[in-house]
């Protein structure tokens, strides 16, 4: 568990601003910013998380919580606390089923589907993906089989940092960029992961769709502020009735 994941998402957006400032291109930033944040992720993992792997998981939690604060305040020092905007690279909107929908959001729909598919293929079809899963399941065994587990962990952390950064930059034109943006997103992400079941990628997808649909359908009848409360309600019910989530493995949270 990484409490600083939301801050890596936020760093992605700010790195995007920096890259766009130099190259004037959103698409270049979409490639370069995640790589930059991936490097930040790798350095962070080697310097801070690696010494803690043999201790209790609680140490890691507290560390990442602290890292989140450090990242947030560092960004505030560098870029200031005010909101910044990234203009969407795709403008205009499309009439869709009786309403108008922004083209950029349609692009996001496509981009996230492609990303999801790519991640799924990586974990199920490639050797590297299988090694990562094995490292999570039994690191000692993998070590015994001659795989450099430390390198696997570093690369995984860097990869996930880059993915978070990519998400942050993709969503920046919609939500705008500010130091707190990661905090708001990490909460939703935790809800999705817990609902879907820890360790189940398919579960997270299903949970994300359920949360998204609940949010949009219910806000037709009631104030969206109350819908946000309803989402926490769903999480409480699921945790009481089925703590492992929709598709979680037994024993993780039960």
């Amino acid at each position: 568990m990484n409490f600083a994941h939301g801050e890596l998402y936020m760093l992605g957006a700010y790195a995007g601003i920096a890259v766009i400032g130099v190259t004037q291109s959103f698409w270049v930033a979409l490639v370069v910013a995640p790589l930059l944040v991936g490097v930040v992720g790798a350095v962070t993992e080697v310097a801070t998380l690696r010494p803690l792997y043999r201790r209790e998981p609680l140490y890691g939690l507290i560390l990442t919580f602290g890292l989140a604060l450090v990242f947030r305040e560092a960004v505030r020092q560098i870029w200031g606390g005010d909101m910044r905007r990234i203009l969407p690279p795709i403008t205009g909107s499309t009439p869709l089923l009786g309403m108008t929908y922004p083209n950029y959001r349609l692009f996001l729909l496509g981009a996230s589907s492609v990303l999801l598919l790519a991640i799924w293929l990586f974990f199920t079809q490639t050797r590297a993906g299988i090694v990562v899963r094995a490292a999570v399941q039994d690191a000692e065994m993998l070590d015994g089989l001659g795989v450099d587990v430390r390198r696997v962990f570093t690369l995984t952390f860097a990869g996930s940092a880059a993915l978070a950064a990519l998400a942050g930059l993709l969503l920046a034109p919609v939500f705008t960029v500010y130091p707190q943006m990661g905090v708001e997103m990490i909460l939703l992400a935790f809800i999705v992961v817990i609902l879907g079941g820890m360790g189940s990628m398919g579960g997270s997808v299903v949970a994300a769709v359920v949360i998204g649909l609940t949010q949009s359908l219910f806000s037709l009848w009631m104030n969206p502020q109350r819908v946000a409360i309803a989402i926490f309600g769903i999480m409480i019910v699921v945790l009481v009735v089925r703590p492992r989530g929709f598709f979680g493995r037994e024993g993780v949270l039960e």
Partner: protein
Amino acid sequence: MKRLTWLAPLLAVALAVALAQPAASQQKVVKIGDLGSKVGVFEGYGKYQSMGIQLAVEEINGKGGVLGHRIEVIAEDDDTKPAPAIRKAEKLILQDGVKLLIGAVSSGSTMAIMDVTKKHKTIHWNSVSCAEFMRTTKFHKYYFSNQPDSRQQATGLAKYILDKMGKKVYIFYTDYAMGQSDGRQFKTALEKLGGEVVGVAGAPLDTKDFSPWFGAINQSSPDVLFLAFAGTDSLRLMTQLHSFGMTKKYKLAGIDCFLLQQDLPAIAEPMEGFVQLNHFSAYNPDPNMQAFNQKFKKKFGVDANIAAGAYDAVYFWKAAVEKAGSFDPDKVSAAHEGLCIDKTHIGRQCIRKEDHQVVMDMHLYRVEKGKNLPIARDRRQGRDRRGHGGPGSAEGLHLGDQEEELAARWTISSRSCCRSSCTASSSGPRWGCWPWA
């Protein structure tokens, strides 16, 4: 005794330095406080409030100050939240001993610090916040305002919306003191004039994604979308409304502080046709308005905006202090009542005795190509703004003299509402005036 002789030259030097200080520093100093949002969602307003105060203070100090005192401004940031606002207001009054407090920007903060200025008997001017509670339930004798509040804006703008824009209005507001007050007052005003409010919804201050609210707005199919937001919220909201095609679908109207002129060029297209009732625009050709704007621009290099009303607040306070002949809060408060100043950006302004509200003219403006232009034609300048129809522009504005007559009727002065008339015109327990007002 001998040990002290070496001290003598030192003392002499110190004395010489003290005496050699320029005369100006011997002038007595009176401190005033500038409290508001310097960062965050409303930072634009806070910064311009500070600029307005600075400009007035420099002018006044250049002419000898107030009652022989040089004015010194102490600025504080309230984080746009009531609790820090109270702390900072107490710091300004108790620690710095300010004789005048100007602020805050957010209505929630202003209401909170009104308790502080009342308790410590400090003259308090508000020139940005527009929730109506300051003039009604929270009112106290040391409080003054030159910002037209929700009720005053509603009384003026509702008629134009219904006559020129459409009968079915959806009210979307920012969910705290200011927006709630705007929502309530505009609903009352629109319904009193025969309009239909097809929906009312609030989104929290600093909302990032407004799209969850859009479904309900589209479902109620209004003619006009009335928006009561401010600062970066407005910026985000307009960008998102535009990307969902809603700025073209509905006519747009909103409150006077919706967006500052400085932010308009960046979102000129989404804002096209947006109508508001306002006391300042850098694009109003009126000579008084231009004179003030030029002065502001010369000093800061940017156009002024409504938050610069703080400039007039300083001058009102100066006039009242000089009339009272002292800084005593009770005397200064009494001297404020009925006081008028001339040749401000909006001409003559007077403080109404009953609720300490400044009475001044307001004009209807419409955003055209990123500029807040007056709807009424100004004959003196020979300017003609007719025929510049954006999507939100009203069809009816192609009249000659009749248009001017109508515009004159919509140039509502704040006289049209005061505290005492509030109880009389109450309509409905929830959205009407508050029973204790």
